[in-house]
């Protein structure tokens, strides 16, 4: 029973690239990509205001929309994920089975297909607004991934914590909510940050439902001006700057958590 606290760490597949903290040089991959992209974004409209300045004025609405979809979806996905994770660990067979099926189903269907399905196929039954459909689909999809993160996070809390809580007379659910879950947050914060970045990138898929996110705004501009190269260059650079910036924040959080150790 003498479990030594292992450093609980959850690897997630599809986040942004995490800047390697060992890479200290100013010419690190992150620095080159981030500041390179930023400098191009600043210089282009100065050097050639037409069309770059116009594009940059046209697109910000889309950035706001992208964040709106991402933030709302991640919040709902966290709630769904918490219950999916608990379900996956539940001793009640039926709950466990339902949660597992949910995760398997979501993982087996491409997000783009899920988006189509919820908006167009289910639209035969209830026609939801585009934005709502988009958020539901992202929540449904990312809820499953969050569920796996929560599951790993809960399992990452040493067994002795549950035993100590039970030995004091707590019920399992009191132990889970008061002792285990609060300790998972530290473990899951970095992977949740990575999922946020992944979701932000995937949110570009909602442009297919004509939700006017960053990508959609670019498409709207390009299709009227035919300046595909210029527009999509800007769109790509904006995505890049945002995700690189966020990935740096996630890496920073991870480092802070490591330093603090077990506070």
């Amino acid at each position: 029973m003498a479990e030594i606290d292992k450093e609980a760490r959850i690897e997630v597949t599809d986040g942004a690239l995490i800047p390697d903290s060992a890479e200290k040089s100013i010419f690190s991959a992150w620095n080159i990509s981030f500041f390179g992209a930023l400098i191009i974004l600043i210089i282009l409209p100065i050097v050639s205001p037409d069309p770059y300045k116009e594009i940059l004025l046209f697109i910000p609405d889309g950035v706001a929309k992208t964040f709106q979809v991402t933030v709302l979806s991640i919040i709902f996905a966290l709630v769904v994920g918490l219950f999916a994770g608990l379900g996956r660990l539940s001793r009640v067979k039926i709950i466990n089975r339902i949660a597992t099926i949910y995760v398997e189903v979501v993982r087996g269907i491409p997000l783009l297909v899920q988006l189509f399905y919820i908006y167009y196929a289910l639209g035969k039954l209830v026609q939801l607004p585009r934005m709502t459909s988009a958020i539901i689909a992202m929540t449904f999809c990312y809820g499953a991934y969050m569920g796996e993160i929560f599951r790993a996070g809960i399992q990452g809390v040493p067994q002795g914590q549950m035993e100590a809580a039970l030995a004091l007379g707590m019920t399992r659910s009191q132990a889970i909510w008061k002792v285990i879950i609060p300790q998972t947050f530290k473990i899951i914060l970095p992977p949740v940050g990575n999922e946020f970045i992944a979701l932000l990138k995937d949110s570009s898929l909602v442009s297919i439902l004509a939700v006017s996110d960053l990508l959609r705004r670019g498409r709207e501009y390009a299709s009227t001006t035919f300046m595909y190269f210029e527009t999509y260059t800007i769109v790509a650079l904006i995505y890049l700057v945002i995700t690189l910036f966020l990935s740096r924040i996630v890496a920073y959080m991870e480092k802070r958590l490591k330093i603090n150790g077990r506070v």
Partner: protein
Amino acid sequence: MAEYRIQIKDASKNYGKVEALKNANLNIGAGEVVLVIGPSGSGKSTMLRCVNKLETLSSGDIWVDDDCVTDPKSDIRKIREEVGMVFQSFNLFSHLTALKNITLALTTVKHTSSEEAEKIGKQLLERVGLSDKEKSYPGQLSGGQQQRVAIARALAMNPRVMLFDEPTSALDPEMIKEVLDVMLDLAKEGMTMMVVSHEMGFAKAAADKVVFMDEGEIIETGTPAEVFDSPKEERTKTFLQHIL
């Protein structure tokens, strides 16, 4: 009233093919301090953990006073409130301060008001000599301090029995005494205690009874003098030569 505070009767526990506990019988009276010794893997923890049902016996029965732990109809949570447990690895709640570690079960299990719980918590911290640490998190405390908080946390439920599973084995030598001192005080106050430990000093000073276990069986039971100074069983002798 039951004759004994803890009664272990024909208790066996299997993990698959492993017989961790074989037909153990042990009676512990109110206020008795029982020391459980034996080599690693001999079933000491298993026996202790069956008393508060962290593990469930495969066969046999255990009573705490008049409550049958092994009866599926008993409310095990009520029994656990009466049976405090202290672990080798402390198992303090790492997200809570020392004080909150002590008050959590009071407020959630006993529904004590938070002011009252805090009062009890502060008294207990004073009792284990850690009044100045109420706001510290477990990670900021030494092993000895953590174990003293863990004892205070168990005492908060006002238990009738305390179980200690190698409470000093994870500690640096210089911290063992501060924990044993708290345990000695408890023993003097008349707490019924079941202690898995090889601390001879504590055994001589506080134990009423010593139980030697090997391969899941209770081999020998007696007073500390009987078991340590003139063990009857060959296995006990061999083991004692090892640890003394």
